[in-house]
């Protein structure tokens, strides 16, 4: 799976809830170690497919889940490689 974005959070509780919320909405999502270059706040982030970005934002807002920001972030599960972080926080 190739992910194109991550959501960063202030609290890990919110990251857990976000992963669950997105998966229940049938939006591919996975908890990943929080990339240091994205945010130092919480140990984990939630990776998602960039094309889903508007739906991700909508689902988090509907569930009243507080998040720090949404970032473009390349992550490849198969190769385990992390691409470049494009510092384009959208929220």
């Amino acid at each position, binding site marked *: 799976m190739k992910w194109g974005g991550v959501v960063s959070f202030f609290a*890990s509780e919110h990251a857990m809830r976000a992963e*669950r919320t997105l998966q229940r909405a049938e939006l591919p999502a996975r908890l990943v170690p929080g990339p240091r270059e994205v945010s130092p706040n919480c*140990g984990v982030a939630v990776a998602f497919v960039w094309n889903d970005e508007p739906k991700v934002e909508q689902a988090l807002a509907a569930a009243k889940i507080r998040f720090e920001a949404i970032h473009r972030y390349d992550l490849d599960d198969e190769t385990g490689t992390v691409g470049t972080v494009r510092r384009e926080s959208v929220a």
Partner: protein
Amino acid sequence: MSGDIYLDHAATSWPKPPAVLEAIASFLEHAGGNVGRAGHHRSIESSRMVSLARESVTELLGGETPDDVIFTKNATEGLNLAILGFAVDGGRIVTTSLEHNSVMRPLRYLEQSGRCALDVVHADGNTGEIDLEEWTARVGAPGTCLAVAVHASNVTGILLPVEQLGAIAAEHGVPFVVDASQTGGHMPLSLPALGASAVAMPGHKGLLGPTGTGVLYLAEGVVLEPLIRGGTGSQSESEYQPDFAPDKYESGTLNSMGVVGLGAAAEHLRTVGVDHVQAHLTELGRRFRDGLADVDGVVLYGPDDPARSVGISSVNVEGVPCATASRVLDDEWGLMTRAGLHCSPAAHRSLGTAPEGTIRFSWGEDTPEASIDVAVEALRTIAERARSTEQVGTFA
């Protein structure tokens, strides 16, 4: 001892649903990392399980978002957080005469240290009646910063009209804290509907979770000072306490396995239905009172109608100290009750049962009718012995 009959659910429930034990074991085996402290898979799995537990508890209690639910180690911690958080130096606090020491001691501390004045409004431990005019006058008096009331007495189980008390507090813009220690899991609750600013309850009584767990609900918009400050796993670069829930109020490593057990208990209650639990408790209460109606020498406290209680009944046997009767019940029938003042001296003064206290019988979701029948017959026997020259009991 002839049995193992547990009628002390108002202290802590036993046994716990098997799912609670399984969830705790599963947590320790399959997770076991520290919640929110790392990105490795055991930490993440622990965080997932605790987060799911928070969701289950929130849904059971009708919270709007899991951020409304703070995990504490018991109701006392939640009550202290709320009371000390709302108290304003130089202000006045209003409460009832049926409060447990988990409320009374922090309030008396505030009074004794000169920080707040305290008004205690009399409430009837048998009927639950409270003078609403007096409550209104005290709550509406200038300088009142907080009102606190117990949802149901831990001595007689009588329910107080907390929605009315809360509405009066809201009319005067006074925060209202509810001690729901005996009602959580014993009657359907929608916490926002109680109209309280904060509601505290233990996780280990009616909610059927393990000891060492508690829940504090904070209404939307309520922001308090935390009781303690420290590591939360979040905002590690900052030396200042996070300002968001739940982290703000949950410093230090959480009782994760306990919380996960509590989450399993909440799921169990959602499956069983708390309305069914309440109906069962009421039926057992009726059986207990009806069984003792024709027994001479047994004094019953609390409401005549068990539907106005939550699975608790207090009694005394004339001529027998309550501690003696409670010990005989355990020694001869294996029947576990609690004697004395139940950490509620004010409530016993209201009932007229201080300083001796009462024998408290309290049942739970899985208590069979047969246990109530044994309790009735045992009390009948002790009362008969007390009226004759026979020894009340022999002690092991």
